[in-house]
């Protein structure tokens, strides 16, 4: 297909020497380098690019920028490279680009859902889905699924993204957002003071509105001034230019987030370079020069393809040499938009008429249009468009905006394009991100940035300054002022200002919504937010139903909820709300814009922090041995811990049973290096332990170990572990693997904020040590072979520790037990971990020493009723609930952390959930962890839940399954039966018993 709308223009923005082929909805088209997907489609005369969300009406391209609500595509040819929902107006064309509409089924030109839309005109008011699918609530999920399928926008990629992304951090004096005339002027002015300047722009080249303007600067085309200025900036070492870089967010304390699209314009996948890069800029001063967006007018059937923004039409003509139609009707409230008719006329196509809603205007552009012989009708408006998949004509009628009425008969004009302009809205989005409330300015009929606490400046269109000469001088001034605020320069721009003559313009009319002969609710649809099919009638209905706050109107009608985030429709929506409520626009107020300014890919935000770089992993010194011996691993915090060591052909359960039996009957070995270890020193270390642990530490002698429980101030168990007294004023505290960092922070908190008078120091030494636990009746025999001290029960008692040499390496041996068996925990410098482990394995060979992982550790400890904090407790469990009152010091002088709370009323109740053991009636059935417990089997739903299973295993040593659980008042209910209704509908019975199943007297660890 040829490019029917491409004219023989002279734009330098496209490269006619490089033709690019692309496909849209399965059809091949051609465009040029420099085109956007939108300009290329318009060049090829493609009218319908999508279907609307709710009514499934055919939609065409309306804008040429980030406001675009309709040309939202799925771009990319594979499931790995596909991108949902980029705007065709902001997507640079590349060779082979594959695009398709994101909705429309079976295709956009023949859409089954459109039947629904036609029927649904009056049947789908705002809140339709809420009202229709509300009951029964339980079915909402399935309704929603179907609705989304019918309506949906793009689809997520199903395969891993092959591209790479990264991030950069910057500091600068002046960050300038927007590279139009104001931004470029500001950059030049700020940079000349020597300030470090960064300037970014979302388009593929700098220049902003100047890229499609015809107003001369210094007697030359505006694009020449842009080229000269950009060249000047590029030559300066203190300036960084970021084209194709969208500032997506403006955050507190002058942090600016920028997404630079580095290779998106080259193709869908680039192996050699970073596709997108997020720049995080911390700026001393920020200049917002984001300009203004043109506002469409709201009129009947204003969504028929061929209805466009006036300035967008000019952009396509001047920048891309594309005239998107043959016969134009222009409707405007201002002089500025006359440029579009002039551009159209000069492109050699017919301007049917200009319809000006004002009574008269004698501005320069108006006169110029008249001189060119273009027909101008004042005091009229386009009240209705005719056509389906393309504009066929318009009805034009005289209107009275004062009382929102049509005052005379309508005349029909045939045309294929309607350009409208309701004036301009400053792009206040970024200034709103930090919480600043925009302020309405009557003179420009728009919001401008309000007060802010950021070091922020704004200039040009964003301030409602639209005349080019003023925009440029505003830019130069603001750049100098911002540089001075950052400590550079004198605050004044002293260079020569470029010369440009602004056309004299008459006053614009503040008009948003065009009346129709019928009242709004009966008139043809007048769209406000195209993407969400929000109409003027819908907003008025919402107002009538009582939604008066603009925030409520937004949420009820979905105004501004689309991917364009209300850029195109919000001001019109507010104006219609204000009118229907009889308020002014400032009284109605605006909703708040939030990041992202335009959608940003997850890839960009994730940067390089993906896959193995997503989170650091920690490995013990013996990790390679575990790998070599076939361990399966589990993640505990960031640690990779051996979970179990399967032998060939074994199931997990078989491995666990073998590991458990070997440990109980001979000897097993566990890598316990990951347990947190905190070295605590100082003359008040002992006193500090007294205050943070529930049990007493005053009398723990050098060479002894003690188990301790730590509570939070509310009395709930927070961590536990063994602390070892190394010297009179020195201890090693062990913590749970996952709790290590939190415990250290907790100790620091109390020391620094509450008891700074205590002389005590904490240092984490977790990684300094390798720890291996040998456990089982033969563990002493293994240790004896490689150790230089007497390890007999007489000289090395349970809960003692000894310094020794193990396998030639200096070691600390703790005689503590988490399995209930005779156990020794050997700690050596991490560098010697692997050496020592291998020596222990060799020594243990004759006893069939068996490595075991965390799962066997869990089973063995549970058989003994030893808790795991975080599994058997959940932050609502006291030591008393655990039946561990023995760990609470009764005579401690200081009211240690947690103590006072135990006497609070709620913690003294006797129906608190308490830890018990459970024995299922079926000794082979393993209760699911998390299963709820009830007392009465046959109670009707909702049943009274009295607790849940916290740990549950099959014990190979005991030959039956067992569980730990919390049950209301459970400690005094031992011997009673409870019931567990399971998710499969069955109910199983279990008996409450002591949580200590194995060796209740504790003889085995004391031999």
């Amino acid at each position: 297909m040829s490019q029917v709308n491409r004219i023989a223009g002279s734009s330098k923005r496209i490269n006619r020497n490089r033709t690019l082929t692309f496909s849209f909805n399965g059809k091949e088209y051609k465009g040029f380098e420099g085109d956007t997907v939108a300009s290329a489609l318009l060049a090829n005369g493609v009218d319908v690019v999508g279907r609307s969300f709710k009514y499934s009406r055919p939609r065409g391209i309306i804008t040429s920028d980030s406001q675009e609500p309709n040309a939202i595509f799925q771009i990319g040819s594979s499931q790995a490279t596909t991108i949902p929902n980029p705007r065709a107006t902001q997507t640079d064309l590349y060779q082979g680009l594959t695009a398709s509409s994101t909705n429309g089924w079976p295709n956009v030109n023949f859409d089954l859902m459109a039947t629904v839309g036609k029927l649904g005109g009056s049947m789908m008011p705002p809140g339709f889905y809420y009202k229709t699918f509300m009951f029964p609530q339980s079915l909402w999920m399935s309704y929603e699924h179907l609705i989304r399928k019918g309506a949906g926008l793009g689809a997520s990629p199903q395969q891993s993204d092959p591209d790479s992304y990264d991030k950069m951090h910057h500091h600068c004096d002046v960050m300038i957002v927007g590279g139009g005339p104001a931004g470029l002027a500001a950059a030049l002015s700020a940079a000349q003071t020597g300030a470090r300047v960064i300037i970014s722009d979302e388009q593929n080249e700098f220049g902003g509105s100047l890229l499609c303007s015809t107003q001369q600067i210094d007697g030359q085309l505006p694009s020449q001034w842009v080229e000269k200025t950009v060249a000047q900036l590029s030559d300066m070492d203190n300036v960084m230019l970021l084209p194709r870089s969208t500032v997506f967010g403006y955050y507190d304390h002058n942090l600016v987030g920028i997404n630079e699209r580095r290779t998106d314009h080259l193709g869908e996948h680039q192996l050699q370079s970073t596709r997108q890069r997020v720049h995080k800029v911390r700026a001393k001063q920020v200049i917002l020069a984001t300009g203004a967006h043109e506002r469409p007018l709201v009129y009947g059937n204003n969504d028929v393809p061929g209805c466009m923004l006036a300035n967008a039409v000019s952009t396509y003509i001047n920048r891309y040499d594309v005239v998107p139609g043959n016969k134009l009707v222009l409707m405007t409230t201002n002089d500025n938009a006359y440029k579009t008719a002039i551009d159209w006329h000069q492109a050699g196509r017919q301007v049917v008429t200009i319809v000006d809603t004002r009574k008269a205007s004698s501005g320069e552009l108006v006169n110029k249009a008249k001189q060119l012989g273009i027909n101008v009708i004042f005091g009229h408006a386009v009240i209705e468009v005719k056509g389906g998949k393309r504009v066929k004509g318009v009805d034009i009628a005289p209107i009275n905006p004062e009382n929102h009425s049509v005052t005379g008969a309508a005349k029909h004009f045939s045309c294929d394009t309607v350009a409208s302009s309701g004036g301009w809205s400053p792009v206040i989005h970024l200034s709103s991100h930090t919480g600043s409330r925009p302020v309405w300015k009557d003179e420009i009929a728009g919001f401008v940035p309000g007060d802010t606490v950021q070091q922020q400046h704004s200039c040009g269109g964003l301030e409602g300054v639209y005349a080019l000469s003023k925009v440029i001088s505003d830019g130069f001034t603001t750049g100098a002022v911002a540089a001075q605020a950052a400590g550079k320069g004198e605050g004044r721009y002293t260079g020569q200002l470029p010369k440009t003559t602004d056309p004299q313009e008459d006053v614009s009319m503040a008009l948003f919504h065009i009346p129709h002969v019928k009242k709004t609710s009966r008139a043809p649809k007048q769209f406000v937010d195209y993407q969400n099919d929000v109409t003027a009638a819908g907003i008025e209905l919402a107002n009538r139903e009582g939604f008066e706050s603009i925030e409520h109107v937004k949420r009820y009608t979905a105004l501004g909820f689309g991917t364009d985030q209300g850029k195109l429709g919000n001001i019109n929506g507010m104006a219609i709300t204000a009118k229907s409520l009889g308020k002014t626009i400032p009284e109605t107020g605006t909703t708040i814009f939030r990041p992202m300014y335009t959608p940003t890919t997850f890839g960009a935000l994730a940067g390089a922090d993906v896959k193995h770089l997503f989170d650091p992993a920690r490995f013990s010194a013996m990790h390679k041995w575990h790998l070599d011996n076939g361990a399966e691993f589990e993640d505990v915090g960031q640690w990779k811990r051996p979970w179990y060591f399967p032998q060939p052909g074994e199931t997990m359960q078989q491995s666990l049973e073998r590991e458990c039996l070997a440990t109980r009957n001979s000897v097993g070995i566990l890598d316990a290096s990951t347990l947190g270890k905190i070295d605590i020193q100082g003359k008040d270390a002992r006193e500090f332990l007294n205050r943070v642990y529930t049990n007493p530490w005053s009398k723990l002698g050098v060479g002894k170990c003690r188990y301790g429980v730590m509570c939070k101030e509310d009395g709930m168990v927070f961590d536990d572990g063994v602390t070892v007294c190394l010297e009179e004023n020195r201890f090693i505290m062990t913590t749970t693997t996952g709790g290590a960092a939190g415990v250290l922070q907790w100790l620091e908190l109390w020391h620094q904020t509450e008891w700074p008078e205590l002389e005590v120091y904490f240092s984490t030494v977790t990684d300094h040590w390798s720890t291996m636990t040998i456990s089982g009746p033969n563990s002493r025999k293994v240790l004896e072979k490689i150790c230089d001290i007497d390890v007999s029960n007489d000289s090395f008692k349970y809960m003692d520790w000894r310094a020794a040499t193990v396998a030639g390496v200096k070691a600390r041996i703790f005689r503590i037990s988490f399995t209930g068996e005779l156990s020794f925990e050997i700690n050596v410098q991490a560098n010697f971990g692997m050496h020592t482990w291998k020596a222990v394995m060799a020594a243990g060979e004759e006893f069939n020493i068996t490595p075991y992982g965390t799962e066997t550790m869990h089973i063995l400890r549970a058989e003994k009723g030893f808790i795991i904090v975080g599994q058997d407790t959940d932050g609502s469990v006291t030591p008393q609930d655990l039946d561990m009152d023995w760990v609470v010091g009764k005579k401690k002088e200081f009211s240690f952390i947690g103590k006072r709370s135990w006497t609070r009323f709620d913690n003294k109740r006797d129906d608190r959930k308490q830890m018990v053991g459970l024995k299922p009636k079926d000794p082979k059935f393993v209760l699911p962890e998390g299963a709820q417990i009830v007392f009465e089997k046959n109670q009707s739903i909702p049943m009274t839940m009295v607790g849940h299973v916290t740990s549950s295993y099959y014990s190979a040593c005991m030959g039956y399954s067992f569980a730990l659980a919390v049950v209301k008042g459970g400690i005094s209910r031992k011997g009673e039966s409870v019931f567990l209704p399971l998710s499969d509908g069955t109910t199983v019975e279990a008996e409450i018993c002591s949580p200590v199943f194995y060796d209740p007297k504790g003889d085995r660890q004391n031999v």
Partner: protein
Amino acid sequence: MLLIHCPYCEEMREEEEFSPAGQAHIERPLNPEEISDEQWAHYLFFRKNPRGLHHEMWLHAAGCRKYFNVTRNTVTYEIMETYKMGQEPNVTASKEGQS
């Protein structure tokens, strides 16, 4: 994202290095056993939630590991001052003319 001055490191650092630690200037009662459940509950659970100036603790978690105090405006997120543990704020709501 805040930019926070650590009064111990004496540098402006990114928020990523810090973690918030709740309201500042809460003193643990010296005689927990002698006060009522209600008084204890106030110490345990009751926290201010002002619209405006808030004195709060932060931890320089990825830096010097010190806790310190911050006076921050909860509406604008402006940080008026940071000061060491044990010091009193210079900027307070009453000094700002707020109640």
